[in-house]
């Protein structure tokens, strides 16, 4: 064998995988070729541990224009338009260098969207951090928020929503999952596919440097010998370069001079060349000496494995080169011809004309290892699923508990974060950020698109299948609350080390749960991302599948938020309260544990509820809608009152049915039973709505009126909770910001100019 075991290990290639490489190439690979396989067969690029499970997800549907396998998924939204969207993680880089890690995460997902020929119009983020009470975590929070803003604000794509949760397990391993949605003409979507033998292959964008090589694979001994400097594995983002690339690429794509486009993300030039070749069933022949380089003396190995940001690969129609080059010149970019499409389906890499690597494209992209890793539930699962015995007498009173929940950073207002994001640029944002699902109108049509990201690591820790089902349901429910019909989904699956059977079990169960719920709710998964090995010192994160759901509204003018718009409206509770406290925010915040069984989910009832919400919004019967999730009914009711300008509420609800795990009152107020929504309606519309709910099979009851300056909740006629809205709103408003504002100005000195 040409390589010793240490070299293979540094490349993350097992002896079995090496044998397979030899078989596929027909000889022993050289070091460069080994490097190509090492990045393309890495977990990140090959999905070798997750692929068998991901295959079970529903990916087709009447509206699906593009399913998984391309740079992003796409769904039809009418008028010849498609919504192109995807979510991706940038977890590990964001821990090492929060600002650049998050910024390049934003840059990467934006490239995935405009690579498809779509104009990006919205960004959302799903973030997980360790407790914000710890200054080390605050530093990460601030860096990540500044990085997201620094990139998104500059490039002029609004960041209009997302979610943030906190848990100790994310302290050494924060999660930064970024979602981007763009618009394209359905018939003008461009794929990352090479075709047409003799067509030139162009490189455009930032120059290639040595950054990020360690991010894709381990450095080889030879690499260390030739490079005295250790480059950071985290790349540095340049939103200005990306903005130029975005505008220039969209202009080029309008000309039909391009047959395929692929961005260079993970595994850089290696991935872009082999994937475009493989998808098109053709070969790609490039000479690395033509690749623009930031540094001198770069080897073919370094050039092929670099993960420098803001670079694109274009396959141009032969004869149209001048036209394409002129557009890039207009934007002060230089498109460089680095090779051409060949007939033999090989990836051939030259250095000054001499062939230095030659492997079949498909060997890199499609014939990599597939693992069916063993999985088994954790031994302590039954213990986890049991709520601790509590002495009800020692629990805080309902009003105290409510204030504590509202002030917990996971529930409290995230205005401190979204105020630092430009959420209005492009003037499409029609539901104010922070007031529910993110909604953008589609200019030139009457339509709008609603988006929501949701995931609950606590539920998934206790029952990953159920937690994942609930995440799909909640994301779709949030979109439906805005008045939009859920039409497609994307997922970002964040887990620990898949080589451990209990982690693999979490993964397999979660994927199964996502599949079940997406099938039932008719939201096919059109793409996504898997992030494994999220562990620090053997401590895995809570299993965190994050689901992004996209919904379509035919009439943008009926968009609804969570906020009660006026006093004197009827408050209607939709759905049923079973008082389920397992995995709840209450149990975490008040009892300090993650325990119990997550709430049940009847997907048929969920579907009926969502369809009802969409239909009622469409006829204008609903004034506001907000789902009950973290913190249960009481927290949701306060959230309906926050930002309303002081509109309180006075309601009477029945005692929750079910087991009364801690006690009836606690479960009724703070239990997190799924499939529940609080809506407000004009009093003269109440009877009609209740009648239609009966017909639709949706449980609905008028529970009270908006108005007054207090939050009053009676249970079965007995006043349970009564507190001034101003106290509740203050707790909610400051619960998160009081922690992050607790530092000197110098600490938050990362940022950027302006719009």
């Amino acid at each position, binding site marked *: 064998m040409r390589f010793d075991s240490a070299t293979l290990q540094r490349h993350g290639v097992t002896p079995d995988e090496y044998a397979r490489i030899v078989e596929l190439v027909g000889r022993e690979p050289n070091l460069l070729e080994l490097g190509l396989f090492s990045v393309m067969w890495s977990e990140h690029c090959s999905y070798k541990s997750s692929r068998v499970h991901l295959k079970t997800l529903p990916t087709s549907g009447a509206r699906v224009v593009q399913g998984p396998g391309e740079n992003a998924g796409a769904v039809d939204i009418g008028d010849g338009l498609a919504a192109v969207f995807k979510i991706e993680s940038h977890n590990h880089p964001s821990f090492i260098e929060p600002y650049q890690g998050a910024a390049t995460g934003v840059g990467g997902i934006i490239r995935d969207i405009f690579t498809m020929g779509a104009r990006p119009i919205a960004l959302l983020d799903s973030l997980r951090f360790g407790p914000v009470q710890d200054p080390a975590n605050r530093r990460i929070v601030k860096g990540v928020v500044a990085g997201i803003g620094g990139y998104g604000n500059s490039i002029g794509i609004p960041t209009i929503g997302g979610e943030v949760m906190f848990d100790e397990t994310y302290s050494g391993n924060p999660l930064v999952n970024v979602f981007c949605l763009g618009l394209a003409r359905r018939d003008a979507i461009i794929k990352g596919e090479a075709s047409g033998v003799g067509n030139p292959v162009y490189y455009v964008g930032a120059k290639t440097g040595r950054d990020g090589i360690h991010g894709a694979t381990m450095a080889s001994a030879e690499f260390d010998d030739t490079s005295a400097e250790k480059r950071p594995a985290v790349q540095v983002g340049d939103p200005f370069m990306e903005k130029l690339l975005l505008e220039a690429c969209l202009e080029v794509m309008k000309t039909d001079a391009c047959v395929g486009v692929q961005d260079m993300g993970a595994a850089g030039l290696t991935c872009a060349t082999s994937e475009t070749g493989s998808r098109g069933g053709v070969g790609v022949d490039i000479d690395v000496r033509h690749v623009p380089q930031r540094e001198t003396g770069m080897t073919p190995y370094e050039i092929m494995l670099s993960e420098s940001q803001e670079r694109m690969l274009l396959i141009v129609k032969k004869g149209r080169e001048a036209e394409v080059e002129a557009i890039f010149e207009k934007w002060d970019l230089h498109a460089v011809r680095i090779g051409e499409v060949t007939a033999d389906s090989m990836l051939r890499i030259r250095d000054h004309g001499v062939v230095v690597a030659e492997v079949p494209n498909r060997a890199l992209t499609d014939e990599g290892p597939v693992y069916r890793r063993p999985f088994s539930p954790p031994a302590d699962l039954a213990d986890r699923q049991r709520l601790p015995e509590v002495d009800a007498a020692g629990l805080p009173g309902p009003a105290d508990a409510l204030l504590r929940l509202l002030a917990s950073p996971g529930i409290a207002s995230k205005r401190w974060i979204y105020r630092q994001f430009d959420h209005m640029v492009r*003037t499409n944002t029609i539901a*104010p950020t922070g007031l529910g699902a993110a909604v953008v109108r589609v200019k030139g049509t009457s339509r709008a698109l609603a988006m929501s990201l949701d995931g609950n690591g606590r539920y998934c820790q206790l029952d990953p299948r159920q937690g994942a089902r609930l995440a799909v349901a909640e994301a779709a429910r949030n979109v439906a609350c805005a008045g939009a019909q859920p039409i497609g989904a994307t997922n970002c699956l964040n887990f620990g080390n898949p080589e451990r059977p209990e982690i693999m079990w979490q993964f397999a169960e979660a994927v199964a749960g996502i599949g079940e719920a997406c099938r039932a709710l008719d939201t096919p998964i059109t793409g996504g991302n898997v992030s494994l090995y999220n562990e620090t010192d053997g401590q895995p994160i809570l299993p965190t599948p994050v689901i992004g759901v996209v919904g379509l509204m035919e009439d943008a003018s009926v968009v609804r938020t969570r906020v009660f718009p006026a006093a004197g409206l009827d408050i209607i509770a939709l759905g049923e309260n079973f008082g389920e406290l397992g995995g709840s925010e209450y149990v975490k915040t008040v009892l300090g544990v993650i325990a119990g069984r997550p709430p049940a989910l009847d997907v048929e009832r969920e579907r009926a509820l969502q369809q009802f919400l969409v239909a009622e919004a469409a006829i204008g019967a609903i004034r506001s809608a907000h789902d009950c999730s973290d913190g249960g009914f009481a927290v949701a009711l306060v959230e309906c009152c926050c930002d309303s300008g002081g509109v309180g509420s006075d309601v009477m609800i029945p005692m929750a049915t079910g087991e009364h795990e801690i006690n009836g009152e606690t479960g009724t107020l703070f239990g997190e039973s799924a499939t529940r929504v609080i809506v407000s309606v004009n009093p003269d519309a109440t009877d009609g709505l209740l009648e239609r709910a009966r017909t639709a099979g949706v449980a609905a009851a008028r529970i009270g009126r908006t108005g007054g300056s207090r939050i009053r909740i009676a249970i079965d006629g007995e006043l349970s909770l009564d507190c001034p809205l101003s106290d509740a709103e203050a707790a909610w408003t400051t619960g998160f910001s009081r922690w992050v504002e607790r530092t000197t100005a110098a600490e938050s000195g990362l940022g950027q100019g*302006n719009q």
Partner: protein
Amino acid sequence: MKFAVVVFPGSNCDHDAYHAVRHVCGQDAEFVWHKETSLGGADVVILPGGFSHGDYLRTGAIARFSPIMNTVRDFAEAGKPVIGICNGFQILMECGLLPGAMLRNRDLQFHCEYVGIRVEHTDTPFTRRAVEGQVLRVPIAHGEGNYHAAPDVIADLEATRRVIFRYVTAGGDVTDEANPNGSINNIAGICNERRNVVGLMPHPERAVELVTGSTDGRVVFESVIRQ
């Protein structure tokens, strides 16, 4: 009436300005690439927001060297209406058409939110249709909007009635709480001596349709359209 919306590399509110004057106000409008030297017969010039040239060196510092800026300077010197919004305001200051400079926001954070701005004077082409003292609810979105100038410059601006917009409370009061970025005298927008060139940090082009939250910014465009 024809508007020219100048596009620099890194402009990102160009489409919003175009949408506001073309689709909402129903006027003729054209994008003008920064390498051009002609404004194509436009009656009004808009320098839109964004991060022209990546905010490299200083915000707006490189854009002043774009070929189109010579034409914009001539256009302004001929007394024709020019408005710079956010980064456009910064460019106007960099090229000397307006005095002053921007510092980082005093809390060093980017702010995107609605603010109140009071129309101080109505004798500019962009405030003619407003009422003096009128409070407009419009968004800001910037990290460097903390207006700064030497004391004599500020005194001159005030004495010559050239502070056109000031950050105020909803009730119209100039308070420190209403000042989102630390600008001297709560200054949100100013004009030149001839009063035909106006620069402001808030985004009136984002507040022209009810569906996106406010129509208060329309008066800025309607002022110049319906002279």
